[in-house]
Every structure is written in structure tokens, then in C-alpha cells.
């Protein structure tokens, strides 16, 4: 088990290194000239050159890449020679646009994304797995056909449409919810738990509609497959109650692929729900990434892309480990 963990985490670090290199290369050879962007509107060639030196962009590619990597293992110096500033670990550089420390920007944005992700994941797991299970238990009946039909429509609803319609109906027309504010970050803040829920509720729904539909499908298909297995017949033959058959035998065996998907989706969501954050003006990682991408703010874009890749890969590993605990049939190795 220990060697399995070491191998998985070793492979993860290696993959992250490759991801960082590719991201760095892609953005490094992008055409946006960061020096003139950082320098601003009125800029003489001289001052662009100064900015280039201050940002360290005059150095060769590999020197820049290793300087970037060194910020991930320890503190690093930033700025023009003679006017250097210390950038504490973990250092991801400074924004070309605002000169803010990227690590601070991420630390500010992350709680918003977290608030969004937690609620949305809870919502779609309950709705998606619940209805998927119900559909599987009523396979072929009217309930099943209705749920399957609704999920087909659900997976076809693009988030911009769902989000804007929710805002239009529940905020604009009915006025049941306020517009999202960036004042409420945590359920334990001054505003209280209720205000936190009201603030993020519509954004959760926008995400949950799409994901619930996917979870309904995968849960239904898995459960139908599991219900037809021999051990389920045995359980029925033993005369166990229907509830025990479904929940103790069926769900435990059929839940593994759903856990996988949940882990992967949560990992992807923690890197920022780009569209949802944009529509509901939640200043999380996705929101910050859009702003950075459209203004050529490379350090910010890079940092968020790498963080998102980290979450995806990390949750991949977590899921693998969770497998071994949930499903006794899985052997590590």
C-alpha cells in the first residue's frame, strides 16, 4: 500500500512538472508582449525595455522557466536588479496588469470557488444519484421514462442559457433572490449561513442542472447493471428486505464509478467554474482566469491553469486510493 501511494504521488509530481512546462512554453511563445502590456499606454521603447528587465523577460527561456519553478519550492526574488523584492513561498510571480502577488490573488479567489463547488456538488449528487437510483428501481415504468427524458434535456442545457434564465426569472422578474454579492465568502461569516445559501443558490442550481442530468444517467445505467448480477439474486433469494438489497448490496457495489466521476468533477470544478462564475459575478478562480486571459496577464493565467491541472490530477489519485477502500474487489498494484 505504501509503495502504491509513493508510486502514484511520484507519477503525479512528474505529470505536474510536464504540465507546468507545457503551459509555460505555450504562454511564453504566445504573441502578447507582456512587457509593453505591463508598461501601460504611454510607453517609450526605453521604458518597455526597463519593464522587460524588471519582469525578467530578457533572460533565456530555460532560465525563466527554472526561476519560475524555484518559486514553487522556496522564496524567490522578483523585479529589476538592484530593486528586487522578496516573493515568499509559494511564489507564482506578479500580475502584469495590477502588480499584485499572484499567490495572494489566488488565495482571495479560492474561497469563492470553494463556496460554489461545495454547494453545487452536494446538490447534484443528491438530485442526480437519487433520481438515477429511483429510475433504476422503476426501470421501464413511467417514472423511469420521465426521469430519463428529463435528463436528456438537462444535459443539453448550456450553462450560459440556464444561468441567464435563472437570473431573469428568480432575480429579475420574481425577485426571490438578490444578485450575487462578493461580500459573502463563507457560511461561517458575519452574514450567516442563510445569507451564504441565498447568495450562491442560483449558481449552484445552474451547475447542478447540467451535472445532475449526467449523474442520473450514469447512476441509472450502473444500478441496472448491478441489479442484474448474481449476488443480487442471491440477496433476493435469501429473503432480504428490498431496502437492504438495494442499499446494502446494490448501492455499495454499483457506487464505484459514481465516486470516480464525482472525484474527477470536483477536481475540475475546484479549478474554477469559468462560465458560472462569469454569469453570476462570483470573483473566484474562473472569473479571475477569464479576466487574465482576455487582458494577456500571463502569470495569472498560468498559475490558475496549473492549479486547476493540479486539482484534476490530485483528485484522480485520491479516487484511485478511495477505490481500494470502497470496493473490496479492487486490489492495489
Amino acid at each position: 500500500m505504501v509503495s502504491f501511494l509513493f508510486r502514484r504521488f511520484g507519477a503525479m509530481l512528474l505529470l505536474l512538472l510536464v504540465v507546468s512546462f507545457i503551459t509555460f512554453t505555450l504562454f511564453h511563445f504566445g504573441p502578447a508582449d507582456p512587457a509593453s502590456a505591463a508598461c501601460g499606454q504611454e510607453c517609450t521603447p526605453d521604458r518597455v525595455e526597463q519593464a522587460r528587465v524588471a519582469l525578467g523577460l530578457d533572460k533565456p527561456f530555460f532560465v525563466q522557466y527554472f526561476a519560475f519553478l524555484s518559486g514553487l519550492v522556496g522564496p524567490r526574488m522578483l523585479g529589476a536588479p538592484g530593486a528586487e523584492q522578496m516573493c515568499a513561498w509559494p511564489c507564482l510571480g506578479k500580475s502584469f496588469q495590477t502588480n499584485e502577488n499572484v499567490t495572494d490573488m489566488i488565495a482571495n479567489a479560492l474561497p469563492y470557488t470553494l463556496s460554489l463547488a461545495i454547494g453545487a456538488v452536494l446538490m447534484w449528487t443528491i438530485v442526480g444519484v437519487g433520481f438515477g437510483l429511483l429510475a433504476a428501481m422503476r426501470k421501464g415504468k413511467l417514472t423511469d421514462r420521465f426521469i430519463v427524458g428529463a435528463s436528456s434535456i438537462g444535459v443539453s442545457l448550456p450553462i450560459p442559457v440556464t444561468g441567464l434564465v435563472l437570473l431573469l426569472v428568480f432575480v429579475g422578474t420574481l425577485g426571490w433572490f438578490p444578485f450575487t454579492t462578493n461580500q459573502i465568502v463563507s457560511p461561517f461569516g458575519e452574514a450567516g449561513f442563510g445569507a451564504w445559501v441565498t447568495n450562491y443558490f442560483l449558481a449552484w442550481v445552474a451547475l447542478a442542472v447540467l451535472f445532475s442530468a449526467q449523474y442520473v444517467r450514469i447512476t441509472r445505467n450502473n444500478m441496472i447493471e448491478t441489479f442484474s448480477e448474481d449476488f443480487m439474486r442471491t440477496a433476493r433469494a435469501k429473503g432480504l428486505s428490498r431496502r437492504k438489497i438495494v442499499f446494502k448490496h446494490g448501492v455499495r457495489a454499483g457506487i464505484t464509478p459514481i465516486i470516480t466521476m464525482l472525484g474527477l468533477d470536483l477536481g475540475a470544478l475546484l479549478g474554477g467554474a469559468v462560465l458560472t462564475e462569469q454569469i453570476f459575478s462570483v470573483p473566484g478562480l474562473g472569473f479571475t482566469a477569464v479576466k487574465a486571459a482576455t487582458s494577456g496577464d500571463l502569470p495569472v493565467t498560468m498559475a490558475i491553469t496549473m492549479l486547476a491541472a493540479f486539482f484534476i490530477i490530485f483528485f484522480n489519485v485520491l479516487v484511485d486510493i478511495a477505490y481500494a477502500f470502497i470496493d473490496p474487489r479492487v486490489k492495489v498494484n
Partner: protein
Amino acid sequence: MTATASKPSEQAKAKPVATGRSLLATAWMRIRKSPVAMVSLAIVVGMVLFAILAPVLVGIEGQDPNTTNTSPEVLDNFYTPGLPLPYYMYPSAEHWLGVEPGLGRDLFARLAYGAQVSLIIALLSTLVSVVLGTVLGAAAGYFGGKIDMVISRIMDLFLAFPHLLLVLSIAPILQSRLSGTALARGSFVPIASLVIVLGFFGWAYLARVVRGQVLSIREQEYIDAAKSFGTKNWSMIIKQVIPNVTGVVLVYATMMIPTNITAEAALSFLGVGVKDPTPSWGQMLNAAQAGNWYLQDPWFLAVPSIALILTVLAFNLLGDALRDALDPKSSR
């Protein structure tokens, strides 16, 4: 199904039938039996015709997508809070779907030309992904060994990247790269950059599926037979292996199209895809959100949304039907 049909022993018994035709025939038989699939197919064909015939239809209407109509009464009426919208915001004989608030451009014309842009981007990027995914997946599965390992690791890498984030940050870079070239004319740059970005980042999943299929195809007798005739590797992949994964590829391609339609809408909505004045469904959504127009004029949001949902839904349902018909693994 197709794999057995092309086994030499059975082909000798049955009349020789082209694999592609029997595949489509199987699909068609299945689709014809399901009313949902038939309606979906009709919507898909209808949308494609709508896009192709955009110039004709807009010509009949007598409008065009770029003429602005900012006469004072349009804007003044619109900006008066509390008043109902002026009549030309709604469908009329003159403007079949009304006009945009603000610029007053004809909505039907923008929807039709937008369909062209959205569908072209979705179809071409799917084509790029399908070619890359099929060739790389088939090569990985067929050759095995080191080639398989390298391609599989690249697949893992592509699947580990945060897709939307990366596409989002690369699209503007690519656009400014392309706009310096000789090809940069009209709406070529945004369309080409979206096709490249979506196509290049969408192949990995299909490649993984194809690889899995090819691993079992490689062990079939007809491959051994072809080998004994001295068939070269690449000719084997193109003539023997790929025809036998066509079913699976067709299913995944059909499902990739709605994903790419949604992706185009998402990127243009975020302002990094197709930009005004070129219309696309995503650009229209972007326009509806900009300045919160949709809160005052829900119709403006409804027009692109309905087109988008209808098309994506139809492609998804068609993909489901095709999968039931062609994917040997799903026999429900």
C-alpha cells in the same frame, strides 16, 4: 456487429456488402423505428439546411445581419423604464424575429448567419478531433509497445489539462497570431482559431476509446490473413483496422458535435470566441448578457437560446440512438 460482418468466412456465404453501407443501414433501421430519433434527425437536418440556406431565407425576409437601425424612437422607447417594449422588438412581417435592442439589427438574419458560424465551427473542430483521435488511437492500439506508451501518455496529459481554462487562454493568443497572416479576412480568424483550439484539445477521449477497440481487433483472424498477404502496417490500419471502428467513431463524433456547439457558445459568450459584428449563437448570448439586456428584453435571450438547446438536444438524442444501434458494448 460490423466486425463479424467483415469476417472472411461469413463474407463468402453472404453477398459481398460494403462495410460502410451495412453500417449506415443498421443505424438507419434502428433510427427509423424510434420516433424520438426521427424527430431529432429531422431537427438536425432542418438546422443544417437553415444554415446553408441562410442567404436565401434572409433575402426573402429582405433584411441583412449587419444593418443597424438606431433611429431615436427605438432607443428612446427602450430606455424609458417601466414602459413596455416598442413593437419592433417582437416578431413582425418586416422583422421575422424582431430586432436587437440597442443596435436594432435584424434578429432572424443574425440567427441564420449565426447558425452558419456555430455549425461550421462545431463540425470542423469535430472533424479535426475525429481524425486525430482515430489515427492516433488506432496507431497506439495496433502497434503497441513504445508507440502505444508515448501516445497513451500524451492522451493522459491532454485529459489532465483543465480543458475550458486552457482553451480560454489559448484562443486569444491564437487569434492574434492568425490575424497577422495573409488569410486574415472577414470572420476567418475567430472561426479558424476556435476550430483549431477545440479540435486540438478534443481528440484524447476518442483516441482512448478507439485504442481499446483496436486492441481487440488486432487479434482477429482477418488481420492475420491480411498480414499473411504481406499488407504493410499503415495500409493495414487504414484499410482493415479503421473501417472496423467506424461505428464507434461515428457514435462519438455525433456526441462531440453538440459538445463543440456548446463550447463555441461558451467561448463566444465569454468574449474570446466569435466577436461582434460576426454573428454566432454564442456571440448572440454574449450580446444578450452585455449591459443586462436580457433582463429588460427576454426575447433577445430566448432567440439564440432556443436554437442552441434545440440543436444540442437533437444531436444528443441522435447520438444516443446511434450508440444503441452501433456500439456493440451497449446492448440495452
